[in-house]
């Protein structure tokens, strides 16, 4: 198993709450990614980072924000959760852009 961790694994929260999904990796990878995946569907890139203090939005529009203050840590924040945010969120990392991406176990988010 890859050394990339996500917490919490499952989260049920009410509409309007602020939440932060945590992602950490111990491989020293520069590149990190956040994907959104509905059950049994394809992955959509919502944010990525090429290194400390570098963050970019992906192809899928998202109301979330990310930060990259340390190489190993790439948290995702939703300021005000809505039912439309219900999904699985996968974090990944890679050493170079064209390398294999290593994935965390995911956070399954339900907003009621």
């Amino acid at each position, binding site marked *: *198993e*890859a050394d990339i961790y996500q917490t919490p694994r499952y989260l049920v929260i009410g509409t309007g709450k602020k939440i932060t999904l945590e992602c950490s990796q111990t491989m020293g990878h520069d590149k990190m990614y956040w994907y959104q995946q509905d059950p*049994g*569907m*394809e*992955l*959509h*890139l919502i944010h*990525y980072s090429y290194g400390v203090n570098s963050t970019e939005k*992906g*192809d899928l529009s998202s109301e979330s924000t990310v930060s990259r203050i340390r190489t190993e840590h790439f948290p995702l924040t939703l300021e005000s959760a809505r039912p439309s945010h219900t999904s699985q969120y*996968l974090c*990944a990392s890679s050493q170079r*852009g*064209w390398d*294999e*991406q290593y*994935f*965390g*176990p*995911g956070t399954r988010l339900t907003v009621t």
Partner: protein
Amino acid sequence: AQTVTQSQPEMSVQEAETVTLSCTYDTSENNYYLFWYKQPPSRQMILVIRQEAYKQQNATENRFSVNFQKAAKSFSLKISDSQLGDTAMYFCASLGNYQLIWGAGTKLIIKP
């Protein structure tokens, strides 16, 4: 825009049989990479096999091999001697401009 198409939403085969999963892609990049990832039920996404487009030789990893047809933009995955542990969602992905574009996935069920 880059696209990846997996035309088989679900497949099932008997244990020990050979199965081929289809993938076609469209890209304007000259140099790109193609991947097959596996997502077992409730487990982390992992890389199955990777192909560099400039290499004509098809990639192989033990029981997994690809049939890469560059002109046809086809990248199928063959699993030989299938095992129960091969049951998973399989995603084809194309890397261009340092972002992975994912197919919708094929659910593969290996029956005992």
